[in-house]
């Protein structure tokens, strides 16, 4: 029984990384912009967060540094894509390639570094419930932040005026522009918020999830987070569920190994990637599912006044 409680706990923890990054990317895509640079932003943010914690000892500052790194990189991407009308896919790809190279370059001095010990977290009383306690109530606060973020985003997107404006920019930038909204500035802000959340997820990976720094340590989580927005057909609640699903797939490999199944470890490591491909194919098979919630202007440039 305890093994299952731990599996659930590990699943939620792994899903948190994907959920935070993917919710950020969802905000991007809701204004019509796809940022393929998620992987690169997460890598640089992971390094920024890790280095900050090494030097200051403060995890909060580490998260802040990760968010700042992500937002800064997203801002560069945003200016290129929104003002210079560069191709979104190529620019995002450039961000991922640059981020991978830069973090490997700048991070060489941190490979051996260690982080200060962290206190374990537990919610009083609830953590002592058998089974449910270890599964749900002994997590790092970020796990609950991810849930709160999802609820907050649903409220923001579908219950506030600003959220409505944001969505209208993604559905029809021309109409939003005609109504007098600053389409490009709104897009930039959304892209930067998306970058900051990817950065937060990256910093969580390097300071809490696997507290160390190695080159390429995000290992495709940024790309899986990108796939999650499609998987979730651009609905925040489904992003969270999807993230936990993929977190579960990631954790299942350790469970299989522990349970003594004789599968080569490489095939277990493959599972999250294979699962992403399979799920993408299954969801995309029905164009109607995709189109209902997909922001209409996604991936398309917008030139005001043309």
């Amino acid at each position, binding site marked *: 029984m305890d093994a299952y409680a731990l599996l659930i706990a590990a699943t939620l923890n792994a899903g948190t990384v994907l959920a935070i990054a993917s919710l950020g990317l969802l905000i991007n895509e809701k204004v019509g912009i796809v940022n393929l640079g998620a992987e690169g932003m997460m890598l640089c943010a992971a390094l920024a967060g890790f280095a900050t914690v090494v030097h200051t000892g403060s995890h909060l500052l580490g998260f802040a540094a990760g968010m700042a790194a992500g937002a800064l990189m997203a801002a560069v991407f945003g200016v290129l894509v929104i003002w210079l009308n560069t191709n979104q896919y*190529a620019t995002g*790809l450039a961000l991922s*390639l640059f981020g991978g190279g830069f973090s490997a370059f700048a991070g060489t001095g941190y490979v051996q570094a260690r982080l200060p010990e962290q206190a374990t977290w537990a919610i009083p009383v609830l953590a002592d419930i058998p089974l449910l306690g270890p599964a749900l109530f002994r997590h790092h606060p970020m796990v609950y932040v991810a849930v709160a973020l999802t609820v907050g985003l649903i409220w923001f997107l579908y219950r506030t005026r600003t959220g409505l404006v944001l969505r209208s920019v993604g559905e029809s930038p021309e109409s939003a522009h005609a109504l007098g909204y600053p389409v490009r500035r709104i897009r930039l802000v959304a892209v930067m918020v998306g970058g900051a959340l990817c950065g937060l997820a990256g910093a969580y990976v390097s300071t809490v999830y696997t507290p160390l720094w190695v080159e390429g340590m995000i290992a*495709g989580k940024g790309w899986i987070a990108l796939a999650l927005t499609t998987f979730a057909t651009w609905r925040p609640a489904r992003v969270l569920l999807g993230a936990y699903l993929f977190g579960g797939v990631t954790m299942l490999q350790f469970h299989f190994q522990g349970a003594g199944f004789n599968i080569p470890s*490489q095939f277990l490591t493959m599972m999250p*990637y294979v699962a992403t*491909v399979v799920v*993408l194919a299954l969801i*995309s098979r029905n164009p109607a599912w995709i189109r209902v919630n997909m922001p209409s202007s996604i991936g398309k440039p917008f*030139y005001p006044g043309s």
Partner: protein
Amino acid sequence: MFKLEARPQPSPVWSYASPLLALVITVCIGVLLFVALGKDPVRGLQVFFWEPIKSGYALSELMVKATPLLIIALGLAVCFRSNVWNIGAEGQFVMGAVAAGGVALLADASSGPSIVVVVMLAGVLGGMAWASVTALLRDRFNANEILVSLMLVYVAIQFLNFLVYGPWKDPMGFNFPQTKTFEAVTKIPRLMEGSRVNIGLLLALAGVGALWVYLFRTYSGFAQQVGGLAPAAALYAGFSSRKALWVALLTSGGAAGLAGALEVAGPIGQLTPYVPAGYGFAAIIVAFVGRLHPVGMVFSAILMSMFYIGGELAQSRLGLPKSITGVFQGLLLFTLLACDTLIAYRLTWKR
């Protein structure tokens, strides 16, 4: 304030000047980076732009690295020109290497020299097969080819690891994760004594010619590109977008697979976990910087090869991490995309 003003026609001058300007900006940032790190910037530039071309041997090593980059980029150019975003060339490279390595491992003392052809064909087929997974999922299930092709890179690398840590591990290899060294007969023939340049270079140059003819002198090459330039026009003309998708992915997969075969049966000589060296990703930059033009990509492949060699030299001579290569590669693509704005827009000063 500076304003961007749309040009009535795209500027032909800037479509050539933009990669050069991007290179200049990247070099300037590089100089700043060297200064910031307390290194002599002149020495830094020497390491990247002079050392790789200063002797015959250095030039041949430059070609050794430029060859796979060029071959992969030629295939990717077909993809990007037909608006198919295959960014998983690295995975197709690995699967080509695996297939070629599998054939090479079957060879023994009795194999004839023609086995080299089989090794290369196996590489092409391996890469094609891997790319066809992406094509099939895009065609039948409408799955996004960017994400699928990229995810398959991780799967391919794990598959290679499985083979070299498991069934294909050299029993005499002191438990290192690598296959036995391939038989000499399977090695890709070298062009001359004293350098590692092999016939892959000739294949790459032949590919340049073939791609030029296909893109600019054949009907099917034209039809292939219309879908990328103007999907509505392609639809109206009755050019099949499904066919374009398959042609693009099979060509680029085959090219990447061939490059993988040439690497493992050439300079590397065995399968190891270090076969994936990022050529598949660097080739994306080669393709864009070379303007997706066969001749342009020759120059950009050489440039990218300089970055690789310069990075290695920067490690040994300047004590900088080798990953500086990745920084410059990423920067170059970034600045290129920004400079490309000048093709369609002109910068004007307005108060």
